[in-house]
């Protein structure tokens, strides 16, 4: 059994690294995204901003008397998110879930020094209500996370998602379509052996490419992981396993690359936008936040950000780890039960 699994594992790995276009792209893609976004942020070209407000509805009279605040609230492409207190809102600012925090009652604001988006919103605030009394800037206390460090786990997670889902789902469907699976079905190879080999192969590829991209970006941007590397690798591996299993579930029966591609797109696009890879869901409607929680990518990105940015130990993220492990087991069990060697 082990020899058969090893045979499939080796063949799949060779197929991956000898397909130079696909191999190159899986390495290059995350680099390009990081470089592209750091360039875009350098140029201050973002259009949507989030500003946290501390208790404005509780102090309407005083807030209403500030022409600067009134004017600022009318700014287009700025979303205002309310918080009950500064204690609740400041960690969000440190983690770039909001770009600026304003206390209209006290006439003060906080902005992250490293955030290009914060810089833009600060300019918008200072130019509002010309001639009126200006809000006072307060220094942010605590560890401030550089923006690229906040973004990086999301980009890595997204790359893993595409690699896991398309690298397994699409490939298995192609094997089924071209008859390669049918040929394997008449050998002593069992579905368990085949699927296990596919999972291990993709996991090795995922961990290897992610480590390479991590090392490259760490050198380029000199960022640090504040938590345990072992915990980081564990969460990436568990998240990757969950998404590989999801890829196998999608590929369990279909022999149509077009159909599988459609299903994969339907899954990957919402996952990409709702898993806080690009922007936070702070202030989003509750059902949107609830929907985001069904995606493994959401939990993986959340955990890896907390490990990298805050140094949070795994013991404080057990619910997310349980969701990742549970979803992996569920997807794998369903994928194995539904798996068919050939189209009916």
């Amino acid at each position: 059994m082990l020899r058969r699994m090893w045979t499939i594992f080796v063949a799949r790995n060779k197929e991956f690294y000898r397909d130079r276009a696909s191999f190159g792209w899986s390495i290059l893609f995350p680099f390009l995204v990081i470089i592209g976004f750091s360039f875009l942020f350098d140029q201050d070209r973002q259009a949507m901003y989030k500003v946290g407000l501390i208790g404005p509805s509780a102090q309407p009279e005083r807030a209403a008397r500030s022409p600067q605040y009134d004017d600022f609230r009318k700014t287009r492409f700025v979303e205002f998110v309310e918080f009950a207190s500064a204690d609740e809102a400041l960690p969000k600012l440190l983690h770039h879930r909001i770009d600026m925090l304003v206390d209209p009652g006290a006439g003060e604001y906080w902005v992250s020094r490293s955030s290009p988006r914060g810089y833009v919103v600060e300019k918008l605030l200072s130019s509002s209500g010309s001639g009126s009394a200006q809000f006072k800037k307060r220094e942010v206390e605590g560890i401030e996370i550089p923006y690229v460090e906040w973004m990086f786990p999301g980009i890595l997670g997204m790359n893993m998602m595409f690699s896991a889902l398309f690298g397994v789902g699409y490939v298995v469907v192609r094997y089924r379509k071209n008859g390669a699976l049918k040929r394997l079905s008449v050998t002593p190879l069992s579905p368990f052996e085949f699927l296990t080999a596919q999972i291990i192969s993709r996991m090795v590829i995922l961990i290897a490419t992610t480590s390479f991209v991590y090392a490259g970006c760490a050198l380029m941007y000199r960022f640090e992981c504040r938590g345990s590397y072992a915990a980081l690798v564990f969460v990436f591996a568990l998240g990757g396993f969950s998404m590989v299993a999801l890829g196998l579930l999608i590929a369990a029966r279909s022999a149509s690359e077009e159909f599988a591609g459609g299903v994969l797109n339907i899954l990957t696009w919402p996952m990409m936008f709702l898993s806080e890879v690009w922007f936070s869901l702070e202030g989003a409607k509750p059902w949107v936040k609830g929907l985001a929680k069904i995606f493994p990518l959401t939990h993986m990105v959340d955990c890896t950000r907390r490990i990298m940015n805050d140094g949070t130990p795994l013991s404080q993220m057990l619910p997310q780890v349980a969701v990742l492990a549970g979803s992996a087991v569920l997807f794998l069990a369903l994928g194995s039960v539904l798996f068919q060697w050939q189209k009916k």
Partner: protein
Amino acid sequence: MNILEVNGLVKHFPEVKAVDGVSFSIPAGSCFGLLGPNGAGKTTTIEVIEGIQKRTSGDILYKGARRGPSFRQEVGIQLQNTELPQFLTVRETLNFYRNLYDRRADLSWLIEICRLEEIMDRDNWKISGGQKQRLLLAIALANDPDLVFLDEPTTGLDPQARRHLWEIVRRIRMQGKTVVLTTHYMEEAQILCETIAIMDHGKIIAMGEPEELLAQYARGSTVVLRGLARDDALSGLQCSWDRLEDRVEIRTENVNECLRELIRNDVDLTAMTIRSQNLEDLFLMLTGHSLRG
């Protein structure tokens, strides 16, 4: 001793009865040919035996017992259409399949018998159609099987590549292996198989040794007219005839009398040929349509 016995095999699909009560037995070490046109049920029959498809009813016995886990270890299979693993060389592909079995054929034997010496280090996608068929045959032999299924192994090959493959099959036979072959080439079945079963519409309509079948059903000759022969000139003939795509074929047991009739009817015999009846004529006689139809 029979290595394979099939009794009353039935395979129904929702809208078609693909295999309809097929029975045969194959002695160990022989070559058995399933012959028939496209859609006759040949591939479905052997795919059910191979375990790729489930039977609707009937019995399949391998070495006198129901097929167990050893069946997959001991049979070699060449499917009609198989894509080779991508980005592997011929050598890696052979080793890939060899490593899936507990019993493995000697690599040098596979290379020698299937004449793969020159392409061993070539990428799969760079080999020709004939080379691919030889590699697929080598893959079917990767586990040194006792029983080999070859599903239309020569379809689409040029005459030379086809003859090369026949030679390989003969050498496999000499190793004492049993071969089950499907084909729609008469010549192939006649040359390679000791026993043939002719299938049409999911049933076996005739079975036996090729010579035996010919002696039983096709004792005469076939007159082939390639010129324009009018139906009214042929309608009075004492023997049976068929108008095919580019010719008219007349089957007769008395060639002299047939030719005299044709001359009397003023039929142009300029491009006429006469040959002994073969399996193709037999098939035409039994089913009323040609094999490749």
